[in-house]
C-alpha cells in the first residue's frame, strides 16, 4: 500500500474473477492460501552460543540506553549447526535481562525478490525474453505495445500482462491484435509484484522462445522497487511530459535499462527539448539505452524492434547453450559408463 496514492494490498485480482490469493484447481476445487506460508527460513545469527554481551541502542527520540542480554545457542551458523531446539523455555542467566537481540539481516523486499527469481528462472528455462514496461499514465504504453506486437507477431509468439488498478480495457486492446493478454487489476495497489506475475505466467503459459511483455501500472514511483522477474525494465516517457521527469522520478529511470521517448512525431509542435530529456535521463542512469519513437507514426520503431529481436535471440542462444552443454555432459557420462 502506498501512502501517496492510498492503495491497499487486499484488493488485487487477476482477470477471471477470483481473488489473487484464491486458487482454482483444474478439477474445480478452490482453496485460499496464506502468504506467510512460504518455505523460507530466516536464520538468526548469534555471535556466540551462550554468550552474553551488551548493546547500545539509539531510540527515535534521541535517547540512548545500554542493555545486556544473552545469546543462548540459537543456531550459530559459523559452525554450520542449525539448532532449532533452542526454544524459549531455556534457562536465563541470573541477573541478566531476558530481552535479547535476534539478527535478521534480510532485505525488506526478499519475499518479492524470491517470487521474481522464480519467474526469471521460468523465463530462462523456456528461453523467453521478458520485459517490464513502466511509465506514468498517458505516455502511450499500450499504443506502443499494440504497434510493437503488430510488427512482431508473425515472427515470434507474444504474451502480454496488463496491470491497471481497474478495468480490462488494455487487455482488450492487446487481444484485438490477436495475441493472448491477461489483465491484472491491482485494486488499490500501485504496482504489480512478483507474486501476481507468477500467477499470470501460470495462466498465460507462454510459449517457448517467446516474448513476454508486462505493462505495469501507470506510475513512475512504486513499480521501480518491485522486481517481477523481467530481463529489463523499459521506461517510456512521452514528449508531452516534462524534460525533467527523469530528475523528478530518478528511481524509475535508474532502474530501467531502456528509455523509449515516445510521441516524437509531435516534437515540431512542442517546446520539448528531446536532447535535454535524454541528458537528464543519462544523468540519473549513464548506461541507459535510448530510442526516440512515435508509436502512432512508426518513426524510430525499427531500432526498437531490432533491440527486441536481439534480446530474443540472446535468450534463445543462452538456452540452446544450456541444452547443448547438458547434452554434452550426458554424452560424456554415457561414455564413462560404457568404458567401465
Amino acid at each position, binding site marked *: *500500500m502506498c501512502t501517496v496514492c492510498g492503495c491497499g494490498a487486499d484488493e488485487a485480482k487477476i482477470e477471471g474473477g477470483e481473488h489473487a490469493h484464491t486458487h482454482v484447481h483444474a478439477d474445480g476445487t478452490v482453496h485460499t492460501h496464506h502468504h506467510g506460508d512460504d518455505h523460507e527460513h530466516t536464520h538468526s545469527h548469534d555471535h556466540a552460543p551462550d554468550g552474553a554481551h551488551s548493546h547500545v541502542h539509539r531510540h*527515535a527520540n534521541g535517547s540512548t540506553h545500554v542493555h545486556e542480554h544473552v545469546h543462548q545457542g540459537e543456531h550459530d551458523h559459523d559452525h554450520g549447526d542449525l539448532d532449532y531446539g533452542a526454544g524459549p523455555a531455556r534457562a536465563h542467566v541470573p541477573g541478566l535481562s531476558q530481552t535479547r537481540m*535476534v539478527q535478521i539481516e534480510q532485505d*525488506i523486499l526478499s519475499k518479492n525478490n524470491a517470487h521474481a527469481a522464480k519467474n526469471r528462472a521460468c523465463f530462462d528455462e523456456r528461453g523467453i525474453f521478458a520485459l517490464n514496461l513502466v511509465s506514468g499514465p498517458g505516455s502511450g504504453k499500450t499504443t506502443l505495445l499494440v504497434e510493437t506486437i503488430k510488427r512482431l507477431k508473425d515472427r515470434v509468439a507474444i504474451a502480454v500482462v496488463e496491470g491497471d488498478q481497474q478495468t480490462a480495457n488494455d487487455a482488450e486492446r492487446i487481444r484485438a491484435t490477436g495475441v493472448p493478454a491477461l489483465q491484472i487489476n491491482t485494486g488499490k495497489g500501485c504496482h504489480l509484484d512478483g507474486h501476481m506475475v507468477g500467477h499470470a505466467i501460470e495462466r498465460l503459459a507462454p510459449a517457448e522462445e517467446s516474448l513476454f511483455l508486462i505493462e505495469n501500472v501507470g506510475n513512475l514511483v512504486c513499480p521501480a522497487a518491485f522486481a517481477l522477474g523481467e530481463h529489463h525494465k523499459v521506461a517510456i516517457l512521452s514528449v508531452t511530459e516534462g524534460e525533467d521527469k527523469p530528475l523528478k522520478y530518478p528511481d524509475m529511470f*535508474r532502474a530501467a535499462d531502456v528509455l523509449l521517448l515516445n510521441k516524437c512525431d509531435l516534437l515540431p509542435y512542442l517546446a520539448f527539448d528531446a536532447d535535454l530529456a535524454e541528458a537528464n535521463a543519462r544523468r540519473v542512469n549513464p548506461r541507459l539505452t535510448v530510442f526516440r519513437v512515435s508509436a502512432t507514426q512508426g518513426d524510430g520503431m525499427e531500432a526498437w524492434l531490432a533491440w527486441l529481436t536481439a534480446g530474443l535471440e540472446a535468450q534463445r542462444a543462452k538456452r540452446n547453450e544450456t541444452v547443448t552443454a547438458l547434452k554434452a555432459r550426458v554424452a560424456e557420462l554415457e561414455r564413462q559408463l560404457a568404458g567401465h
Partner: protein
Amino acid sequence: MHEMSLAEGVLQLVEETAQREGAQRVKLVVVEIGQLSSVEPEALRFCFEAVAQGGIARGAALEIVDVPGSGWCQPCAATVPMVASYAACPRCGGYQLQPTGGSEMRVREIEIE
C-alpha cells in the same frame, strides 16, 4: 512511495522471527535504509506503526539506521559520496556515477523478550 507494502514486508520478517524465537513481545526493530533506496524513512515509520497494531510487534520502537550513499565515478575512477541518485560527483561535477552503496532496505535485527 509504497512504504505501506514495505512496512508489511518488515512486519512479516519481524513476526516470523519473533514467533520462531518464541518471543512474547518485540521491543525494538532495527532497519537499515540506504540514502539511495526508494524509502522515505518518516513515511516508513508512520506505516510500520500502523501495520504493527494488534500483533506481536505492537508498540515496538523502530530504529532506522541511515546508510550513506556512495557511487563509482568513471572519470575520477574513485568511489565518492552520493547524496541522491541524480547527484553530481563531488570531485569532478560530472554525472558518470554508478551507485555502489546506500540502496539497501534491510531488517537488521530485533530485540525481543
